């Protein structure tokens, strides 16, 4: 019997490929932001610029007549640059995918070349045993077939790269000169216009999601560049698209306002610029941080960006991770002294929380800080003395939580976390509006709001209302506890900006202390190894610190690892004396939360 053995060929080399799709995406993002500046310029020329203040008929008419070609050209430039930006962004996405495939091809090629060489060795000299010859033939045939598959993948990869390059070069070549731009784009309707006109009038996030899903890809891309303020801040629109839009707004503010000399900025321009810079620092902080388990850099999603909201305090929400796809999502609501300029410290908190969640085994997490309400800060600090700002904030937070639920079609796990006055805000959102959160965490809470008599009132089940209160956290002692009036605490002795706000809270009556046994929530351990010996403010701001009991327990809650949450004894209130906190006698621990 004759056995024919064909040795497998040496696979072709994988070509060099050092393109960086993420850098290309950055280039596309910058071009899109610039297109947005042209878009605004077109709107200005077609609107406000017409109101010249010239009353002389001939001069006014000449002025207005001259505007028409300028506006037409600005609109054409906007559309042309946007098209180029979209082409570059698409090319960047394709390069990211091609890079992954290239890595796989290279690895396949190395493996197959080794295997082909090994088979050549086995065939020289040829084995004499027939069974061994049969095995060699089978191995050669299998390897040849794998090499053919590799070669076929390599051809496809090469063709896909060329197609992607051809597409982007065609787009760029079509918009290189102003003549080309005017010929192709002047007078062309902006696809953003029709898309904007079809937007639902109410703020039902499900209707918004349905509308957004019904748009073409071109319309969505157009709206992101032309109306970033709308897309970036409308609940129901997916987080990735909101973030793309808010990136346009934020980068445009940084570029435009940064170009105005500081001594020539108006007060509003300066406020907007300061808030933009604060948001930029927070974004940068997130993107420079790494997941402790994968060592990969985090990506930031800018979920809200509204720098002039609340009289210049601003609104901003930013996530570590992907809000559209993460299995576990948390929303952290800060309290006292919060405005947009505190974005950096809030970013640090949610970075820590994400890192801890990852360290505790969470593999699909997004942690977002939410400065989405007018929190007591600066001159507003007097507002802390009432629940008004928390109640109004609760409504806004409920809208955000509803929006997150509407933009997701899957069943994900959502945790709302409130710190300090933010815990009162979270409690109001839950009791007054019943948004679809799965778990609630109240940290250093001055009270769960007047509308919540017990944990059950928050609507998620008392077993899903978690409370973290350091026993020496002064603010955590301000809620109504049994018969003790919070105003009885000698808050008047406090000094400094934060102390003054706490002093006001002492008499505010922000509701029940959620750490008390009567409230019925799950209290978890949240002591600090650097805990003070008397009630103080320092212990109010340690909950998100690494290697603390509170961060470890919050990470477990965010991950849905309820059995791992270390319970703490609740505050109780015997008739014969003041409230008793059993945690004050326990020696605090310092669990590792990030592996460092």
């Amino acid at each position, binding site marked *: 019997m004759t056995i024919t053995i064909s040795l497998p060929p040496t696979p072709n080399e994988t070509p060099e*490929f050092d*393109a*960086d*799709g*993420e*850098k*290309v995406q*950055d*280039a596309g993002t*910058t*071009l899109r*932001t*610039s297109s947005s*500046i*042209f878009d*605004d*310029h077109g709107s*200005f020329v077609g609107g*406000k*610029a017409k*109101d*010249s*203040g*010239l*009353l*002389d008929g001939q*001069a006014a008419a000449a*002025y207005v007549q*001259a505007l028409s070609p*300028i506006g037409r*050209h*600005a609109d054409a*430039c906007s559309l042309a*640059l946007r098209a*180029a930006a979209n082409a*570059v962004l698409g*090319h*960047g996405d394709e*390069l990211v995918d091609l890079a992954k495939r290239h890595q796989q091809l290279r690895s396949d090629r190395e493996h197959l070349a080794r295997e082909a060489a090994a088979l050549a060795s086995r065939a020289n000299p040829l084995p004499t045993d027939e069974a061994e010859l049969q095995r060699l033939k089978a191995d050669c045939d299998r390897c040849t077939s794998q090499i053919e598959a590799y070669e076929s993948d390599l051809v496809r990869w090469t063709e896909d*790269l060329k197609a992607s*390059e051809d597409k*982007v*070069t065609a787009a*760029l*070549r079509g*918009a*290189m*000169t*102003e003549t080309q*731009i005017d010929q192709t784009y002047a007078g062309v309707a902006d696809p953003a216009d029709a898309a904007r006109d079809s937007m639902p009038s109410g703020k039902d996030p499900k209707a918004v999601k349905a509308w957004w899903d019904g748009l073409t890809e071109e319309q969505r891309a157009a709206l992101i560049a032309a109306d970033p303020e709308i897309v970036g801040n409308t609940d129901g629109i997916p987080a990735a698209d909101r973030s793309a839009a808010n990136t346009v707004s934020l*980068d445009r503010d940084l*570029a*435009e306002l*940064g*170009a*105005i*000399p500081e001594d*020539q900025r108006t007060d509003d321009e300066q406020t907007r610029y300061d808030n933009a810079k604060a948001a930029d620092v927070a974004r940068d902080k997130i993107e420079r941080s790494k997941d402790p388990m994968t060592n990969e850099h985090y990506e930031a999603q800018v979920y809200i960006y509204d720098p002039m909201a609340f009289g210049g305090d601003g609104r901003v929400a930013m996530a570590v991770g992907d809000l559209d796809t993460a299995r576990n999502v948390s929303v952290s609501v800060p309290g006292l002294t919060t405005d947009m300029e505190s974005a950096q410290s809030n970013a640090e908190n949610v970075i820590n929380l994400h890192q801890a969640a990852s360290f505790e085994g969470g593999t699909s997490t997004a942690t977002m800080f939410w400065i989405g309400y007018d929190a007591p800060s600066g001159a507003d600090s007097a507002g802390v003395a009432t629940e008004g700002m928390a109640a109004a904030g609760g409504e806004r937070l409920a809208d955000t939580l509803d929006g997150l639920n509407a933009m997701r079609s899957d069943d994900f796990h959502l945790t709302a976390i409130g710190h300090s006055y933010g815990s009162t805000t979270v409690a109001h959102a839950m009791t007054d509006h019943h948004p679809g959160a799965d778990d609630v965490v109240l940290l250093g809470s001055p009270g769960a709001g007047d509308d919540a008599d017990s944990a059950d009132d928050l609507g998620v089940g008392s077993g899903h209302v978690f409370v973290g209160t350091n026993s020496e956290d002064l603010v955590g002692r301000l809620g109504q506890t049994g018969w003790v009036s919070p105003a009885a605490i000698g808050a008047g002795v406090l000094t400094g900006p934060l102390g003054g706000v706490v002093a006001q809270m002492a008499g505010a009556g922000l509701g029940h202390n959620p750490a008390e046994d009567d409230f019925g929530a799950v209290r978890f351990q949240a002591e600090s190894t650097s805990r003070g010996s008397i009630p103080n403010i320092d212990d109010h701001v340690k909950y998100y610190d690494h290697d603390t009991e509170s961060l470890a327990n919050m990470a477990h809650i965010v991950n849905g690892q309820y059995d791992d949450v270390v319970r703490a004894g609740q505050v109780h209130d015997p008739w014969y004396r003041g409230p008793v906190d059993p945690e004050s006698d326990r020696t605090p621990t310092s669990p590792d939360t990030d592996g460092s």
Partner: protein
Amino acid sequence: MTLHVEPAKVRSTAAAWDTENLHLTAAAKQIKAVGTGGFTPTVASLVGRFVEAWEAIATRSASASESQADGLRSTAIDILQTDAKTDINASLALSSIKEIR
């Protein structure tokens, strides 16, 4: 006698054109900063030329805005100077038409 110019409006619209100049200059700067590093060699040189072309386009648009601002102020001043021959208010308004940024 009625003025042929609303000085406050001229001032604010001209200032808005000045702001457009600054914004478009910022766009030019932004475009110039776009790197070609991430692209394949086949595309990179074209991106370089594209960036150069658009930096120039944005710069020209910025200059055009500056010209609009200056032109508007200049037209208003010419009209007010004529009016000033017969109207003291026009004389007073003349000094308010000046470049802010």
